[in-house]
């Protein structure tokens, strides 16, 4: 017996033997392969690393059991634990204890199968011999209740080892990219990761030497290209890393103000990249060809143009009106550039790209942040992950701690407050206040819109009046200033409403304020668009597109100036007041919502402006750049970190959604009206002389029709893009798919609920079993004195000492995963204790076998469920 053990333990082949894989296959193999990337790989390795990973807890285990003395005693104690006979007479005996695990059916049948199986085995002598080594291993690794303590520790070690083996095997079969990712994901120390990697490489080379001795030319070539591509990518990423804008600044902001304020700057940066992209597109496909063809500008530059965007700029590539409708031909060999098509395609494709990237980032953000099928009301659990490790500033840490403390205290008192119900009267009063405030804020928004509309119409008439050029230009500034003032002041008004209203959660207040503000801003932009498309476009003015472009230019410039003034007065002066005059106000906080909404507002304007002034993105880039630095300085100088928790990811999702829904879709509809419904101006711009802009496309298709080589384009245009039926069918299909997904989600939700209940039940089962086993243990742990003495003189002693440690460590660290916890503690940890007590008596005790049966059943159930639920359990 002992010999077997030793051999098994020392023989290096043993570690690599294939047979080892068999016995644990039920537990993990399938799931391991399925979702190796997320859960199971971690599970396996978590288990290892948590225990042995840092090598600090190993001493908890009775590692001494590896010494021969222990092993001997172990084997001598085994006959006692086993009521079924003497193992030495039966070569197949060692296989027995595993039976309850491998074949669930044998379990209920009591002792019968044991006997039967044993005799089956002993029939084939060679069979049992072949299995000898494996059996030894099985005895070790089984957390069987019939084995004594030290074997369990060894089992554990072997288990670990084997799991590592399997890990390596699995990793070796992956592609190198996946492997690197998988290794990166294992939560182990560098040394262990390196070991694993080296082992895999060894395995790999072993395999490659045996299987393919020669590498043919083609694969070598492929390999080389892959390698050089990899190198190229690495090099590129290095340079891209250098290009990362504001890395340092963002870090400093995050260090002082946390992720919440950081999210504003990240959003700003994201918008900036949008604008840089659109600038590059517009500049290279629209402006450069035009610059080649254009003549000199003979208007004088006065400086006021920078504010008004009129005058000198009229004759530049900034505005729609300057672009020609001709085809630009510079080279002799007849290659030409059709400005009309270039204009419409560039802007169209830009919007399509914008659309998809917005949808993509929105969907990604939604997936990440709104996946929770059940909304848990409480927020206490959030505390587990509330600490912002970005914060590195000592003062900020202190502040954050005190904020958290007050927050916790508040929320604790809130819980008790919530219980007190409001009376009906109070509730009605509350609803009435909400309604009133909503009516008031919507009324204010409507009034603002009306005012803006009349002012702008008035402005249009002013332009027709015969006044001096300068006066005219100054008069045009009135409208943008009024609009910016409204945008600046009305939000403060809305914030005041917040004082009247009482919300149950601060979150609700935030959401309502955001919704009101976005209503205001979007309706102002909406009314301006109405004015542009309904009044300016039909006013028979010369080059109405350029006029609209100028209007947008002025709006953006003035808004930018107000933004600077806002951060000066809103933050700097406010801080002076807060610190010098009125101490109660204190240092201001950075209002993330307001600032982000401002960004959304200007971005909407810039998107509308792209058609009327193709170089609008350039202005956006400059203004965003300056805003970034101004805001940063103002933030660092004037503001304090936010006191309330700002759920950055969720709010960012909301903002991206707002950017998409009213803003971008609104822009698209404005574009659609302009292109399909409005007549372009007669004397200027690329589309002069057409009845509508879309005619440029149909005209082009008409020309293409005469070339046989481009028939497919015509076909696509007529049957797909221009066809109502196609879009109708597409819509129906999309709707059906959406409906199906919705149903699937509903099903999943129910499933998640059921699984959740199951976990709770299992937890209860576990507690019940633990209690029962503990009760039994305490009742059985007082054996007759004489026997105890006898045993303590024998080799039993060490186990006894090891026992409390062992059970303690078994009970908990094994809980790497909910179910495994049950498995290990119910069937492995506790029964060990019972087997410590005099075994001969115990084996015949009906109570014990009953408990064992319970424990084993629990384990089996857990195992089955683990297989069923593996991919769904905690990550719905």
């Amino acid at each position: 017996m002992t010999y077997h053990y030793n051999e098994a333990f020392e023989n290096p082949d043993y570690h690599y033997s294939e047979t080892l894989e068999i016995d644990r296959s039920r537990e993990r193999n399938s799931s391991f392969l399925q979702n190796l990337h997320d859960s199971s790989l971690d599970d396996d390795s978590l288990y290892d690393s948590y225990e042995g990973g840092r090598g600090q807890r190993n001493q908890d285990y009775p590692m001494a059991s590896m010494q021969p003395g222990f092993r001997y005693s172990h084997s001598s104690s085994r006959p006692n634990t086993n009521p079924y006979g003497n193992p030495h007479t039966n070569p197949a005996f060692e296989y027995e204890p595993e039976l309850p695990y491998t074949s669930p059916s044998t379990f209920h049948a009591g002792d019968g199968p044991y006997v039967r199986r044993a005799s089956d085995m002993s029939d084939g002598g060679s069979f049992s011999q072949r299995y000898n080594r494996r059996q030894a291993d099985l005895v070790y690794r089984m957390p069987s209740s019939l084995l004594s303590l030290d074997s369990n520790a060894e089992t554990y070690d072997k288990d670990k080892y084997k799991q590592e083996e399997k890990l390596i095997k699995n990793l070796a079969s992956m592609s190198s990219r996946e492997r690197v990712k998988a290794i990166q994901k294992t939560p182990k120390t560098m040394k262990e990761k390196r070991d694993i990697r080296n082992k895999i490489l060894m395995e790999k080379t072993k395999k490659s030497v045996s299987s393919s001795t020669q590498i043919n030319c083609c694969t070598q070539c492929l390999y080389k290209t892959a390698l050089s591509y990899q190198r190229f990518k690495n090099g590129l990423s290095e340079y891209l890393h250098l290009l990362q804008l504001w890395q340092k600044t963002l870090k400093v902001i995050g260090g002082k103000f946390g992720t919440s304020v950081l999210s504003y700057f990240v959003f700003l940066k994201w918008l900036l990249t949008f604008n840089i992209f659109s600038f590059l597109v517009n500049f290279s496909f629209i402006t450069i060809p035009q610059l080649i063809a254009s003549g000199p500008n003979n208007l004088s530059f006065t400086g006021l143009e920078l504010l008004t965007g009129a005058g000198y700029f009229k004759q530049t590539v900034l505005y729609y009106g300057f672009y020609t409708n001709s085809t630009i031909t510079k080279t002799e060999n007849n290659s030409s550039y059709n400005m009309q098509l270039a204009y419409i395609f560039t802007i169209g494709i830009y919007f399509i790209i914008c659309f998809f990237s917005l949808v993509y980032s929105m969907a990604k953000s939604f997936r990440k942040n709104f996946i929770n099928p059940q909304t848990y009301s409480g927020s206490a659990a959030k505390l587990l992950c509330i600490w912002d490790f970005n914060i590195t500033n000592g003062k900020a840490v202190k502040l954050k701690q005190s904020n958290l403390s007050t927050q916790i205290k508040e929320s604790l008192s809130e819980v008790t407050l919530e219980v007190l119900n409001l009376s009906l009267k109070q509730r009605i009063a509350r609803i009435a206040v909400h309604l009133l405030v909503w009516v008031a804020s919507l009324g204010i928004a409507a009034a603002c819109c009306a005012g803006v509309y009349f002012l702008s119409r008035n402005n249009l008439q002013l332009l027709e009046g015969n006044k001096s050029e300068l006066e005219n230009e100054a008069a045009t500034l009135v409208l943008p200033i009024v609009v910016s003032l409204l945008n600046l002041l009305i939000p403060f008004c809305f914030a005041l409403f917040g004082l009247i209203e009482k919300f149950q959660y601060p979150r609700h207040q935030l959401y309502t304020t955001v919704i009101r503000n976005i209503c205001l801003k979007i309706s102002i932009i909406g009314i301006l668009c109405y004015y542009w498309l309904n009044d300016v476009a039909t006013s028979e003015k010369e080059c109405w597109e350029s006029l609209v472009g100028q209007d947008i230019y002025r709006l953006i410039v003035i808004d930018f100036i107000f933004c600077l003034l806002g951060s000066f007065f809103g933050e700097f002066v406010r801080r002076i007041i807060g610190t010098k005059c009125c101490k109660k106000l204190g240092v201001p906080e950075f209002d993330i919502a307001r600032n982000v909404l401002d960004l959304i507002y200007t971005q909407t304007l810039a998107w509308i402006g792209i058609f009327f002034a193709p170089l609008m993105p350039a202005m956006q880039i400059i203004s965003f750049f300056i805003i970034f630095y101004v805001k940063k300085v103002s933030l660092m100088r004037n503001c304090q970190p936010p006191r309330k928790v700002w759920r950055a990811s969720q709010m960012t999702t909301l903002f991206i959604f707002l950017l998409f829904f009213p803003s971008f879709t609104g822009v698209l509809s404005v574009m659609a009206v302009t292109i399909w419904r409005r007549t372009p101006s007669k004397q200027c711009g690329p589309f002069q002389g057409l009845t509508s802009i879309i005619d440029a496309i149909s005209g082009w298709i008409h020309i293409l029709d005469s070339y046989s080589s481009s028939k497919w384009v015509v076909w696509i245009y007529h049957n797909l893009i221009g066809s109502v039926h196609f879009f109708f069918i597409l819509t129906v299909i999309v709707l059906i798919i959406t409906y199906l997904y919705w149903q699937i989600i509903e099903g999943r939700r129910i499933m998640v609920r059921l699984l959740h209940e199951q976990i709770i039940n299992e937890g209860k089962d576990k507690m019940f079993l633990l209690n029962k086993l503990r009760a039994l243990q305490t009742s059985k742990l007082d054996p007759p004195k004489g026997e105890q003495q006898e045993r303590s003189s024998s080799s039993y002693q060490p186990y006894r000492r090891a026992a409390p440690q062992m059970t303690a460590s078994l009970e908990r660290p094994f809980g790497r995963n909910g179910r495994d916890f049950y498995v290990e503690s119910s069937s492995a940890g506790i029964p060990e204790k019972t087997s410590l007590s005099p075994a001969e008596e115990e084996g015949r005790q009906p109570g014990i076998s009953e408990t064992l049966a319970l424990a084993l059943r629990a384990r089996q159930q857990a195992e089955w469920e683990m297989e069923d639920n593996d991919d769904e359990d905690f990550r719905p």
Partner: protein
Amino acid sequence: MGGSASQLPRDLLGEYQELTFLTKQEIVLAHKRFSELLSKEERESILQKRVPKSKILTLPELRANPFQDRICRVFSTSEDEDGSMSFEDFLDMLSVFSDSATSEIKSHYAFRIFDFDDDGTLDRKDLEKLVNCLTGEGDETRLSESEMDQLIENILEESDIDKDGTINLSEFQHVISRSPDFASSFKIVL
């Protein structure tokens, strides 16, 4: 920096890149910052040296962190459990706290950081220590005993799914999965 002598060898750099989530620049920067913690003579053999905890904690990124001791403890492979760090431990730490590390691995290490007694579950004592770290040890900010009890009760109520009185790793990860901000806030960048 001590000139070319303290440069990382190329193959080692590649290996680190493969084993961690860090990019080349981040590793080089980490190397630089780590060597600054060592004295001039020690820089020659940076890979063998361990930096004591007290020195690691002079890094501005960790100096103010209330979990600094735990971070050192979790990532240190030192036999004496003194929280001293070798360069590879340091890289391990940065890898976990880097931008590109997955949420799973982040939550795993977060769990270990919060598991103050290293017993594999977050029990009441761990949670109490955690809350104390969050609120600071000062008299004003510290929670009273009843508040603490109530709070821990709430936390367990919400996150202890199997109701065994402690939060194990999978329960913890479940909580983490519901708070998307975690991945961005569990981050330390050099």
